[in-house]
């Protein structure tokens, strides 16, 4: 009696397991803004019928998680977030090389990002650093319109400039690394010291300065330009500036996690995320980054990378953790301690 019962249970279980196992699914780690992540997850589900289980964390956290799970990977694909941690994951062998058939449609900077990491990652969007200011406040304070990086260090802007703390924000670290590449190490730090005198607050999060400017709580915020455009598009009186000396940029990246349980689905997502249709949808969530697919639709409000003077940003050097630590320590010791 007992045995027959058990047999029935086992038979039922086996029958069920063969029919259920075929349901395709994908575990998706996302490091972009929440609504964009949701859009990508739901969009892929609609396009392919594959179930997506999405987790959103910042790129630093996701990198730590992928590293921790290396012996037992739970994620399949990692999309979004600044390129440095993706490059680092490639360097440490945490991600899988893949050459997508979509490559022909991509911008050169996206391909060169892939080539610098043995095809273990690829560029999906990019954004240039710059700043934005609140037109109303600037006018009310009777200040001239700034156009260059050097303008921000002028004494009349004292107490009007905000940037994030490089220790807690990738955006602010990009700013620091950009200044070092633009003006040389000595010149770059001299610039940061001069800027320090005008800073009213080092925020924790990268895009906070421009949000404060939008609300009228701050005049000038140093951020990625697409963040500034987003505030302007939301109705705030923000004007976006591409600094005249030239500027650095980030390349948002995507990687397939090594040992992914659903490798085929991960590759499907990878190819889909590089299509012009998928990338055009970024506008629905006011993500004004420049898409890597040449055919993707961009907003007229978005900064046009071809018209901006971009520096030859050395992602390999300034993305390495040794250089990063050295620069941050130097900033901590020499800049942040100065009186304002």
């Amino acid at each position: 009696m007992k045995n027959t019962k058990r047999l029935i249970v086992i038979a039922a279980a086996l029958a069920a397991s063969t029919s259920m196992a075929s349901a395709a699914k994908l575990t998706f780690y996302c490091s972009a803004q929440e609504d964009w992540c949701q859009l990508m997850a739901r969009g892929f589900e609609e396009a392919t019928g594959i179930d997506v289980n999405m987790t959103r964390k910042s790129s630093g956290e996701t990198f730590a998680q992928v590293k921790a799970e290396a012996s037992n990977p739970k994620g399949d694909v990692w999309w979004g977030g600044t390129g440095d941690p993706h490059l680092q994951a490639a360097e440490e062998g945490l991600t899988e090389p893949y050459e997508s058939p979509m490559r022909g449609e991509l911008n050169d900077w996206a391909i060169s990002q892939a080539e610098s990491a043995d095809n273990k990652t690829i560029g999906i969007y990019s954004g240039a650093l710059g700043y934005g200011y609140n037109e109303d406040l600037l006018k009310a304070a009777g200040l001239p319109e700034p156009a260059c990086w050097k303008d921000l260090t002028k004494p009349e802007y004292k107490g009007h400039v905000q940037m994030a703390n490089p220790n807690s924000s990738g955006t602010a670290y990009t700013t620091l690394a950009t200044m070092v590449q633009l003006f040389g190490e000595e010149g770059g730090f001299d610039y940061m010291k001069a800027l320090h005198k005008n800073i009213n607050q080092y925020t924790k999060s990268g895009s906070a300065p421009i949000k404060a400017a939008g609300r009228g709580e701050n005049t000038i915020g140093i951020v990625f330009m697409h963040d500034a455009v987003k505030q302007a598009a939301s109705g705030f009186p923000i004007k976006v500036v591409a600094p005249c000396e030239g500027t650095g940029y980030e390349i948002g990246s995507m990687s397939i996690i090594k040992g992914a349980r659903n490798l085929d689905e991960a590759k499907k997502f990878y190819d889909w995320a590089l299509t012009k249709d998928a990338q055009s949808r970024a506008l629905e969530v006011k993500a004004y980054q420049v898409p890597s697919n040449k055919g993707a639709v961009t907003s007229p409000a978005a900064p046009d990378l071809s018209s901006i003077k971009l520096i030859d940003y050395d992602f390999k050097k300034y993305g390495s953790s040794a250089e990063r630590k050295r620069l941050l320590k130097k900033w901590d010791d020499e800049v942040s301690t100065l009186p304002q």
Partner: protein
Amino acid sequence: MVKPATQKKTAQSTLLTWLIVGWAGFCLVPWYGMEDGFFSFDWLSWGYLFDTDTAPGLFLVFQGEKLWLAPLMVFLAAPIYAVGKARTDASYSKILIICGALGFGWLIAQGFGIGIRGWQFAWLEDLFGPLGDRQFGMGYGGLLVASAFLFVFTQGIAARGAVNGDIFVVGAIGFIIAIVTIFVFYPILSMLGSAFITQENSYSVGVFFEKFTDRRLWGLACLSGGRCGAAWNSLALAILVGALTTILGLIFALVVTRTGFRFKRGLRAMTVLPIITPPFVIGLAIILLFGLSGNVTRFFADLLGIAPSRWVYGLPGILIAQLLAFTPIAFLVLIGVVEGVSPSMEEAAQTLRANKWETFRTVSLPLMRPGLANAFLLGFIESMADFGNPLVLGGNFDVLSTEIFFAIVGAQYDQGRAAVLALVLLAFTLAAFYAQRFWLGKKSYTTMTGKGDAGVHPQLPQGLAIPVFTIAGIWMLFTLTIYVMIVYGSFVELWGVNNALTFKHYLTAFSVKFGEHGVHWSGSAWDSFWTTLQIAAVSAPLTAAVGLVTAYLLTRQNFAGKSAFEFGTMLSFAIPGTVIGVSYILAFNVPPIEITGTGIILVVSFIFRNMPVGVRAGIASMSQLDKSLDESSLTLGANSWQTFLNVILPLLKPAILAALVYSFVRAMTAISAVIFLVSAQYNMATSYIIGRVENNDYGLAIAYSTTLIVVMLIAVGLMQILVGRTNVGRRMGQTRTTVQAGG
């Protein structure tokens, strides 16, 4: 005490029940945790008994897998031998104690010894060689077996005669100790451990000291024009907030009890508001009033012809927000104390020719010391743990709670630093906890003796009444303004830029569509709203239950180590939420207990964060019930479980409801621990709101918060009606069941 014959029978059947539970856990329920959750029952279709991921312990062992689970069978089998034995038999208790302890110990040892990468400790690998196998976190199978071992052990202890051989009481003590150890002490210890881990994953004391002596933590540059460390900032802020909320709370308590103030009811109603207000909301309203472009700032800038400034960012802003939020808590603590000072004492002083002022200074005030100390402590801890207000108003004024958050989520991703900061925070709050006990000393502050105590509190002396009135009036006006602004803010298009009135934010958050498939909850906030209600509704009764059982043990039973037990259960009261959050992700992100990203971890964190309040409420009302009630129940042949269930519990309805209300409201408004524990699947309202705030979407954040305030007002109102009814019902139905202790 007379031991009725039924007790033996109960003991036998209890033992049998727990053994069945243990064997069921070992033979039928999947041993390891399920990735997609146990209750999806996906595991039934994945090969169940034969797949190593989903098989119960017994099937794993028989397939030659995870052989380290095999010894558990021995410890589960041996107690069966005891079932038929007499309880007084010496071997009965011996078998139960040995099997329970060894089984539980082995379960823990294998859980910590073998993890995702095989052996967890290098010395085990040296000793036994590489394992070639690994295991994940335990699931319901492990949970059932662990509970069986625990209760087998406590029954063995009871059989030896501990606490009069009462299996319910010993079991309850064992259960509380086990869960407090697992969910309070273990996380704190793992956090302590991670403060010493270097980047290369080895332990080092140097790492701790390097992070501990950081200039960003202890710097004192603000004395010379620079910026001070987060530790000093937090300490200064918490002392200021503790002191000022206590003073303000005392003022309001005096206004309500000892003056002819006209708006007493209004003042009382207003004290409830901040308690049910989600975090940030007050901070946001303050920015909208006093920020660089705030209405008040602009008004005065135009009036006086000066440039508006960012003065509110930093200490002033946080201080104002925290005073608004925490003064009501001090008020609620102090009103009981101020009312509790016996008028006869004050009358005695006046008969001895003291004037009103002398009476107040030398009699009333000293008698309020315990209340003042409690109020200060609460303000201090709340300020230390507060996360929302410093986040929006902090400016360059770094405090520990936000620093901890950004050490974990920011680009630095430094768990070690977060752990060190959390330890500093914990040290501060524990120090305050002890300072309070020390200051109160062993003096007696009781004036209520249960004897006739007719009399009226004297009115405040005139010189004190005028400033007290003024301050109370200003505060009420201010609070009112803030809340009016909040409601208004939820209806404007884009505050400060476009002040057109709109329902837009409510529609984005809470729109509902009626389609073919019935109701479609299309608003963006519904997911987190339902999750929050669900988690709050699950955790509230559990919190109340754990709290009241603990209170019962503390007031009604005597056992060895009772004071240590009390300390352990009250400890989580002094632990700030941020610390709980950090320690939980450090402890429960890895086997043997792997519950991060689930709803369970949220429920568990609420239970242990809010349990002390349940304990206090329970102690307060239980000490009003005379012990003779229990004794008569016991003499009539009931055991202690029946006594607890049928005699004590019905008399505790008000305390139960108070604990329920508190834990429900806290579960809906808490942020400091929650922010670390939410996941895509289980997102809470508060963390959704913080996301909107970070996205500069103040309108939606405020609209959502306003909705939550209304929902909680309704919930609290409903529960208060219930409390009122219970009181009346008891007085009508039974005659005088509340017997005053002492008397």
